[in-house]
């Protein structure tokens, strides 16, 4: 396995994860599919031609793994139609191009949250925590926790958009 391959592999993990998550929604499911995808990517690595689009190649493998996952889990995970997921995949691939900018913006926005909110969203995204379990552990009614989480996410989304718009104004050429 060449160094270049390893670099590409590690550098594309986050983007690949987000592409998968956009299509399956559940954090753990996405992680599982990412693992499956990685296994295939690593076993098939001799087939990758240096210089071609690495992300597109892995995205293709991921798409197949998502399909397999959906088949394996049958009806319980079939929430959206295939056509819809195709659209999501196209959009997610495109949106993946400015990920670093978004990630940095998210970091800044997290710092701006009220301490209480930051703590809440932090514990929601701790490994292996579901929103429901979290509500139970902090002793708040699940519904109110859901509402808070929704509000915090919206806040963060807006903050990110604003941050990106601001930085685009500062620079002569927008990144997208």
């Amino acid at each position, binding site marked *: 396995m060449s160094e270049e391959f390893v670099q590409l592999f590690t550098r594309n993990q986050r983007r690949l994860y987000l592409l998968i998550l*956009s299509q399956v929604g559940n954090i753990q499911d996405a992680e599982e599919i990412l*693992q499956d995808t*990685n296994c295939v990517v690593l076993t098939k690595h001799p087939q990758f031609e240096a210089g071609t689009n690495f992300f597109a190649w892995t995205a293709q493998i991921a798409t197949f793994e998502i399909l397999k996952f959906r088949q*394996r889990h049958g009806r319980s995970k079939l*929430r959206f139609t295939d056509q819809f997921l195709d659209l999501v995949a196209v959009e*997610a691939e495109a*949106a993946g191009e400015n990920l670093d900018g978004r990630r940095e913006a*998210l*970091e800044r926005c997290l710092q701006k949250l009220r301490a209480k909110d930051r703590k809440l969203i932090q514990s929601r995204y701790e490994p292996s925590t579901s929103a429901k379990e979290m509500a139970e552990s902090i002793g708040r009614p699940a519904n109110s926790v859901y509402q808070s989480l929704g509000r915090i996410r919206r806040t963060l989304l807006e903050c990110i958009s604003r941050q990106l718009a601001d930085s685009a104004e500062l620079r002569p050429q927008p990144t997208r």
Partner: protein
Amino acid sequence: MTTPIGKPLAKMTDQFAELSELLAAYCDDRLSDDQAMRLEGLASQSPKAMRFFVEYMHLHGMLYWDAAGAAVPLQEDAISLLQTQTSLPDDRDAVTDLVGTSADANASRPSTRHRRVAWGTVTAVIALLTLGTWGYWSSLNRRTQGPDGSPVANNTNDPTTPVGEGTNPAVEVVSPVIVRLGNGQQQPNLGSSVTSREGMGSHSPNVAVLPESTGGPKTGTAETLANGQAPPTKRVDGLLVSSQAVVAQIDDAIERIWEENGVAPAAIADDAEWIRRVHLDLVGHIPEPRRVVAFLADKRSDRRERLVDELLDDPDFSRHFATTWTNLLIGRTSSQEVDRGALAKYLREQFHRNRPWTETVTDLVAAEGFEDEKGATNFLLAHLNNEAVPATAVTCRVLLCEQVQCTQCHKHPTGEWSQNRFWELNAFFQQTDIVRHRRNDPKTGAKLPDRLELVNLDVGGPTFFENRQEEMKVAYPVFDGCEVDPGQSTNRRAELARILTQGDRPQVARAFVNRMWGTFFGYGFTLPIDDMGPHNQPAHPELLDTITSRFVQSGYDVKQLARWICLSKAYQLSSVPATADSVDTPENGNVPIFSRMYVRSLSAEQLYDSLLVATHADRAKTHSWEEVERRRQAWLEQFYAAIENEENGESDTFNGSYTQALALMNGDLIRRATEPAPGTVLHDILSSVAPESEKIRQLSLVTLSRYPTSQETSRIKRLLKQSSNDPRNGLELGDLMWAYLNSAEFRSIH
């Protein structure tokens, strides 16, 4: 810029208020089916809405991945590990000095959990890395590789330890500190449980509802097989000869398959790898250490034959097969009403006494009586709901490996099977009914549910069904071209059992052979294993036919079939392919060629029972048998959930998923197993007077069924010495056991 933000601005939320509410529900796993439809509709309305959808999901992912510390983030060093590791294929077991290093800088004393998270991650990283170069499998052969081998995981708590030692460039890998919000520097987590897990053996629970599947009409001849005669259970000389002849025939067929595909078979598995495999496959758990020691010392040429015979007579053989078939027949989540224990007991008897498979099939299809007295009745008792549609579909899927459920409403998409066929089979179950007996509560006098009885009613006539044109149609009991008298004097289920088990190569035999082969190799002749319909031709039909006819000739001798497979050449092979670029990769969707052993995940039951063999965690306190069984059931239940649909399906998360990994890493069972309470294996080992290296050897033996290599031992020793904990409290050896139990090597059959 420092003002806290808390209230979203109106602009965006107004526009996408409903969309973002639905997305929030989606991200927190509380979206209903109706809401999912609505969400799809809203997001598809405009490119803007679609972008919002994706940005929301990306935020969801980034919060997990970057901001809140996705499990254990790997530091830069992990990348160099990846490079070092993968660029040195000949030394690929030299993975790692495990980690924990920078933890000391941040926290003076890392908690057990943190250290363990680090161990676990490295195990996972190793598995992932080596999967790419087939190294994972070669790591199983470490025993024979001499000083090249190195530990499953190794630890250095001293950041000043020189990195790279001799030919083994050891790399510090992971910071076990979970990085919190605000730290976005982490490298991606490479996942916490990587195992090969196609899970299509008969251990895997069947998720019903595979839309495009069905089975095939057969041209069955109407010869009646003389079944019902019990094949001998003890090996006699004549049988031994014929057994060898059949194995030779199977080997010939397999060798032809290798030749035709231009694939060289893998080397023969070493005895340690093989004894573990054959135990898991035949008796459902890893071998007791003393059995391993005895087997490794056995130099007789027929030691494998002897072991197979021994295991086939072991009570755990019938227990394991009864568990597997109970799960197949009624699922793991069947209703409380059904007497699961009685069915399991019935099956245990059948397997133990080695009754012909046709007899078991007949009982399952035709049994009448009380659920607790006639265990076989529970199969239909579990599936008679909804006009016996599940009974029809499950009978086909489990006993015939045919998927007919979609033909309930329309003809099969590929055209071979009509809708009639489904309802004609269904008609066989239409005389059957459940009587719910009640008893009086002695205190209140109220009627309480007591037990179920499966009865045949004296009714005749056709079944009615509606076709796609909404016309009412009738169906009479017909199966496989055999009609039976639809009058009320016919016992339709008994007739069905007769038709199913007649002929010289009936589907019921082919299906059983397919499942059994799949049990031992992880892959059968069709993918999925329970879809042998006309649209899904089996791979290697000659081999399947050969074994099937032999199985029928043997009088449906289940143990004999298991013996043939276990003694076949293919089953002796290592899981390391002969060449790194082997095309024998069914995990990538290719046709299995059986030129090596495929690595499979343990089933939930195999894992649980193996954990108990390795740790004796159940003996930490004295419990009644019921309590032990209740705990086992409770442990298993966390992985399975019934799907509420009309086909009695269920879903599982026991497939190498996150849930499973977490249950293992943090669960109560593992915690008990790795705390040296009196009665546990760990306690026995720790309290022995043996030197430390012997204790390490024992820990490896009880968990992995092999001894550690000398290099593993020395690295582990170094690690233990560096530990800041007092070695006398035994925590560190407990951690070592924990790492072994969570390794991919422990969690798979290879």
